[in-house]
């Protein structure tokens, strides 16, 4: 792996760590959201069913939003232009960002996972480490999706507008709230091309049915494929500045 990737990743991490308020929000907001959701379900078996889907959805949501806005800022403050005039490749930038955000998204996911299991007392069957590994793949896709979508936004306000367009439809179409099988055929077809469908199915199979990573190999393969494809597309479509 080129040293420039690690240089970019280290810089992204250093930027986040120096922004104490953002750091606090990254850690606290998911806990508040999970607490509210957990307390709003009077029936524990309903929460057991929906928890895996929420874990996947929150990983997608926060990974997408944090990376998207941070990447957008890189362009609007002109540092992307400076990087693009340097010997750094587009792929170095995308992978550097992925690594930089990955650690924070991973910590965030671990906190949500442990909070869900030990505080909200959600029952699960699979191995904790397998749930975690599966979430790593979900995060990778989410971070790359954030980078890719940020190329279509010229400011933070526009970036936030992509949440209702990219994330919310997936919550309704990917089996988070109700089973995909209960939807009309054309929406069922649509759900097959959305990554959250595979994230929700895979995590449910691990956490509710006690399956392992090999059992959910198809879902895992689709999510890995999505993460790789979207990182390549993100690198190709990378723009230098917000005004380009």
């Amino acid at each position, binding site marked *: 792996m080129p040293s420039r990737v690690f240089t970019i990743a280290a*810089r992204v991490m*250093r930027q986040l760590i120096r922004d104490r308020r953002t750091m606090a929000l990254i850690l606290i907001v998911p806990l508040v959201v999970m607490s509210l959701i957990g307390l709003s379900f009077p029936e524990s078996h309903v929460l057991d069913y929906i928890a895996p889907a929420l874990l996947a959805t929150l990983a997608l949501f926060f990974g997408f939003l944090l990376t998207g806005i941070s990447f957008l800022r890189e362009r609007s403050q002109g540092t992307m232009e400076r990087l693009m*005039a340097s010997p750094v490749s587009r792929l170095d930038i995308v992978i550097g960002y992925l690594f930089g955000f990955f650690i924070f998204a991973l910590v965030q996911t671990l906190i949500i996972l442990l909070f869900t299991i030990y505080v909200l007392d959600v029952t699960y069957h699979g191995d904790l480490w397998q749930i975690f590994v599966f979430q790593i793949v979900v995060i990778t896709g989410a971070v790359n999706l954030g980078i890719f979508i940020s190329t279509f936004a010229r400011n933070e306000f526009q970036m936030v507008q992509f949440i209702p367009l990219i994330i919310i439809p997936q919550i309704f179409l990917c089996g988070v709230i109700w089973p995909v099988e209960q939807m009309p055929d054309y929406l069922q077809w649509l759900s097959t091309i959305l990554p959250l469908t595979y994230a929700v199915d895979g995590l449910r199979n691990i956490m509710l049915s006690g399956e392992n990573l090999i059992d959910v190999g198809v879902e895992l393969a689709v999510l890995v494929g999505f993460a790789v494809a979207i990182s390549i597309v993100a690198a190709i479509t990378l723009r230098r500045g917000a005004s380009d």
Partner: protein
Amino acid sequence: MHQFDRPAVEIDKVSFSYNNLKVIDELSLQVPRGTSFGLLGPNGAGKTTLIRLLVGLLRPRFGSIRILGQKPSRKMAHLIGYMPQLHSLYSELSVIQNVEFFARIYRLTDKTERSRRVEEVIRLVDMWAQRHNPVVKLSGGMKQRVSLACAIVHNPPLLFLDEPTVGLDPELRVTFWEYFTALTKQGATLIISSHTMDDAAHCNRLAFMRDGKVIAQGAPTELRQATGHPEATLEDAFLYFVHGGRKKEDA
């Protein structure tokens, strides 16, 4: 001609448009090595677009560009330094972290050498005392100095500086120019865009730009003499060429 004997910058009939609006119009220019070359013109003349074409951020629709004998590309990007018009710094990071980041990006891999060079350039722009301050807390002029430090940390033979003296107080402007002059004496080539004639007077050679074209080029003295008035200023010379080589009152 061997690539080391060629001019630092060769631009041949380059055109570039944004949304069908021609910003650079069949522009040709050559910049000799070891000179400070000023691109002078009003806002909207095409100076920034030309610099972005030269550093490889944009590709010309027509014509060709050679930088140190090569096409602008990532492979030769280590040979150039670029100071964009925006400060283009990581505001949460400190001065030293910003400069160190760009030193690493330009592969100053030896830690001792990198630390020495980072300290050298931060001292050069007189920001050593503030090296641990986050950029967000610096004044505009200080940010400009840090931006310059980031552009020169890898000691490039060719520097593109887009409006480097904007927002600087007169004292700092003098310091910047002393440094630019020292760089050219060491053999570096500087391409500096500006819309102030103060900057123009410091350059070895100038190109007056307007509407995406070079309307005149030469040494400051040559451009002033071309007006036919020995006491003419560079501003007079610019207006003279804007009016097609006629005195303003004749136009």
